[in-house]
């Protein structure tokens, strides 16, 4: 059984001594002695009595020796490593933690313990990054109820030990005590709960703190001498690169001058792979593949930094990393000149012997640039013979299109695919990037802001990858926060920026918006008459999307609207788009009757390679790619070819659609609504036969599957299938009422007031309604009759600004009164 016995612990004995020796009283005496000794030494040196000088000198040396001993031994007393079956837990505390315990008045009082901890800069860094202030904590602990003012210190110690072990450390320090205290004290627990800081978050913050304050703990003499940089003759050992420097950027020089830093975190596996390839005898060429923002350039910067520090194998140590400037190389090169430039460059590099060449976006040299220049043929010899060491970058897509078809050139490289880092790894990368962002914008970034930046970029910037997209989002938000003269960058700032960019409400729904979401049905009914099932289903889906975290990458919602023409299917979609995306403009309407043949799928996802339209991509996929936050309305879905319907299965299932170039089109932030008139007659007959809606829907779906209009697997993938019923006479009058109200609102903008008799509504409903097209012709009828007449009266001057007109029906004709 472990015990905590400071009285027998070596580290606590040292801590007691240090506390005493560094007390203000003793420090004052030490300074006094030092000053006195210097004065006495000077005086005795000038006197003729040697004995006094020897005496003072020897006392001074003893004093000096003891100070060295105190600093180098006593203050550096190390803890015994934590291990199973340890007898005294006190032996495994750091000296600083032991000193803290010894100086804390009441260890069972959370306020007292926290008070001691808050004197430490590391502890302050942790709580500030958790968006908490020292004042906030002090106030909270002081006002805690009596029942929460007692702490079992023994339990806290065990918790501290567990935190240390969880962090992979073998001794307990102040941060472990802080973590244990937070874990034990209900008030602090509640505070972090309010701030939405979870255990994993706090561990990340502590990791960040340690990286920030402790960095590399090694003494200088424990590091390899190579870390001091290259020796003086290294520079002479490599050849001149005067021609190359015209077309390249010296990354090594930039890093040595402090103009660039690597910010490389993790990626050990990839680094090892790159090092292995570059250090071998032949084909020492690596091609890093991955989408923009995944960290390809960061890996190269990381290698550059390690090369400067001498931390790479012999073949890469103290090499100059030159980034080829493809634009400069291609610029203004007349026919034959480009080849000459390249030839000179390769010759120089071969003889220089100390250069690693970085070629970003190598597809630009392989026919992928605007000029279409392909100079791979000139590079192949040098690449194959291992005379050069090259790191190139490209995307998978560009590799497939421009490099892979050139077999020999592609074979000269060892392709290494970079995987997107996990969210947690991305957070740690951002922690490295934050100091730069903070100092550039003169703000403080909280941990939650980093976390939000990663989570929100992952959800809403689906066409890019971590960590690049999260860094860019954080950087952009920091600039916006700085312009507002705010000092703290919080998660809400990131949410605001995302909402501005996507038009999607990202913040937690509170206040007016929460009220609006609660009354969604009523709001939708302002535009849609009846169709209760549709309204309720959509309102529920919207409420879910705005309140509960989504786990999958599926669309926000996917619905199939079945019903006759003119019953409000499209209108519902528009109303939904206006509510969720803020505008009806966010509707991407695709007429599926244009996709009736098998080859129409080419228009959907793009034409196959080899055809002229291959580059253009799919008509549908391109629309979504450019508007990833939209409502996709697939009109007349039943008319699409079964293969086209099948193509939508992964969209509804996983929210991903792959176009012909292999690019993933993500539907995670879309609402998909497919509409269909199939079975309209069946619906009409069933309604007339008073068949209950539930039975009607079941029979309709069976009929549609039986007649092979839709396959079961297609129907099953929708979040909801909604049957719209034909409108009754009363409902048609209500629709007319809505349309007339809309017209009246438009006229009101011109200061003309329009009121209509109920007779007018019934007359329009009767005259304008068409059983085949539903309510759709009503709008045209109102335009042709009511609007047309008002327009004529306005032209004749009878209706003008300020007019109040009333419409009624006389002898089956519309009449206006002023």
């Amino acid at each position, binding site marked *: 059984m472990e015990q905590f016995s400071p009285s027998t612990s070596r580290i606590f004995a040292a801590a007691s001594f240090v506390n005493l020796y560094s007390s203000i009283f003793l420090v004052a005496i030490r300074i006094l002695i030092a000053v006195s000794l210097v004065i006495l030494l000077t005086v005795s040196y000038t006197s003729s009595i040697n004995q006094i000088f020897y005496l003072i000198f020897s006392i001074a040396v003893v004093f000096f*020796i003891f100070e060295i001993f105190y600093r180098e031994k006593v203050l550096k007393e190390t803890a015994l490593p934590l291990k199973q079956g340890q007898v005294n837990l006190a032996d495994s505390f750091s000296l600083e933690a032991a000193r803290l315990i010894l100086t804390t008045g009441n260890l069972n009082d959370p306020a007292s313990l926290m008070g001691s901890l808050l004197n430490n800069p590391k502890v302050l860094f942790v709580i500030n990054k958790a968006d908490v202030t020292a004042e906030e904590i002090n106030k909270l602990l002081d006002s805690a109820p009596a029942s929460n003012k007692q702490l079992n210190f023994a339990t806290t110690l065990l918790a501290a030990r567990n935190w240390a072990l969880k962090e992979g450390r073998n001794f307990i320090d102040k941060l472990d005590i802080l973590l244990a205290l937070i874990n034990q004290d209900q008030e602090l627990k509640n505070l972090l709960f309010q701030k939405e800081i979870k255990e994993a978050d706090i561990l990340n913050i502590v990791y960040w703190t340690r990286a920030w304050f402790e960095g590399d703990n090694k003494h200088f003499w424990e590091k390899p001498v190579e870390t001091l*940089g290259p020796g003086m003759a290294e520079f002479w*050992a490599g050849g001149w690169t005067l021609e190359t420097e015209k077309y390249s950027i010296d990354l090594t020089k930039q890093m040595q001058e402090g103009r660039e830093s690597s910010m490389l975190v993790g990626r050990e596996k990839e680094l090892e792979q790159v090092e292995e390839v570059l250090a071998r005898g032949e084909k020492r060429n690596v091609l890093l593949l991955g989408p923009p923002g995944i960290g390809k350039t960061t890996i190269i910067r990381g290698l550059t930094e390690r090369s400067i520090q001498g931390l790479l194998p012999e073949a890469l140590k103290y090499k100059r990393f030159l980034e080829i400037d493809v634009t400069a190389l291609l610029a203004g090169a007349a026919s034959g000149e480009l080849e000459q430039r390249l030839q000179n460059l390769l010759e120089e590099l071969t003889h220089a012997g100390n250069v690693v060449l970085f070629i970003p976006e190598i597809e630009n040299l392989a026919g992928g640039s605007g000029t279409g220049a392909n100079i791979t043929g000139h590079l192949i010899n040098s690449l194959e013979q291992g005379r050069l060491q090259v790191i190139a970058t490209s995307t998978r897509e560009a590799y497939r299109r421009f490099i892979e078809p050139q077999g020999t050139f592609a074979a000269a490289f060892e392709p290494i695919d970079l995987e997107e880092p996990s969210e947690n790894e991305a957070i740690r990368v951002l922690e490295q990037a934050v100091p730069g962002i903070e100092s550039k914008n003169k703000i403080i970034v909280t941990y939650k802001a980093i976390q939000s930046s990663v989570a929100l970029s992952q959800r809403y910037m689906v066409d890019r990858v971590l960590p690049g997209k999260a860094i860019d989002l954080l950087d952009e938000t920091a600039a916006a926060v700085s312009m507002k003269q705010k000092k703290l960058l919080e998660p809400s700032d990131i949410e605001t920026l995302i909402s501005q960019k996507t038009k999607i409400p990202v913040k937690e729904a509170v206040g007016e918006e929460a009220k609006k979401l609660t009354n969604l049905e009523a709001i939708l009914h302002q535009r849609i008459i009846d169709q209760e099932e549709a309204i309720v289903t959509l309102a529920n889906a919207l409420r879910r999307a705005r309140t509960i975290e989504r786990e999958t990458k599926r669309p926000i919602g996917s619905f199939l609207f079945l019903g006759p023409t003119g019953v409000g299917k499209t209108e519902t979609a528009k109303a939904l788009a206006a509510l969720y995306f803020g505008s009806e403009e966010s509707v991407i309407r695709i007429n599926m009757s244009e996709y009736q043949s098998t080859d129409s799928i080419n228009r959907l996802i793009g034409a196959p390679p080899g055809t002229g339209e291959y580059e253009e991509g799919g008509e549908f996929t391109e629309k979504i790619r450019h508007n990833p936050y939209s409502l996709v309305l697939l009109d007349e879905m039943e008319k699409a070819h079964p293969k086209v319907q099948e193509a939508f299965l992964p969209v509804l299932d996983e929210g991903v659609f792959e176009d012909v170039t292999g690019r993933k089109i993500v539907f995670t932030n879309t609402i998909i609504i497919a509409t269909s008139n199939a079975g309209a007659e069946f619906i009409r007959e069933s309604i007339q036969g008073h068949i209950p809606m539930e039975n009607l829907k079941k029979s309709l779906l069976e009929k549609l599957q039986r007649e092979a209009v839709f396959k079961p697997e297609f129907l099953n993938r929708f979040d909801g299938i909604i049957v719209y019923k034909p409108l009754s006479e009363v409902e048609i009058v209500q629709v007319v009422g809505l349309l007339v109200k809309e017209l009246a609102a438009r006229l009101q903008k011109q200061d003309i007031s329009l009121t209509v008799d109920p007779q007018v509504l019934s007359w329009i409903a009767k005259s304008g309604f068409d059983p085949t097209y539903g309510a759709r012709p009503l709008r045209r009828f109102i335009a042709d009759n009511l609007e047309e007449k008002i327009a004529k009266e306005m032209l004749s001057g009878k209706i003008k600004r300020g007019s109040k007109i009333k419409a009624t029906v006389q002898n089956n004709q519309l009449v206006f009164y002023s």
Partner: protein
Amino acid sequence: MNAPAVSVYLIRLPAEFLQWWFLEAPVTLLKILRFIFEAAVHLFSFKLLFTTYFKPWKNEYREGLVRTGIFIGAFIKTWLILFDVAALTALFVVEATIFAAWLLLPFVVIILLYGAIFT
């Protein structure tokens, strides 16, 4: 909580001091001195000057200039090797003195005290 008494630590202190001064600290000091010496060897490119002695200056490869490159290289490197040998020897002597001084310092104090009191 029973805190340890400072007196307990103070009693142990002389033995701790002797162990540290004569055993632990010299080992660390040797590591530091060795690092400094190796750093000097590395920064003066002592090994590289020998391994590249007959290579042309700045890897000159153009026809007609290679011989001149070798001559210039060997000339400069000869002088640098001589400089390196002198500098490294001086450094070694200084480091040896520091190490000896560390070990002898407590005895020097005793001798000085003896001199002050008994002469």
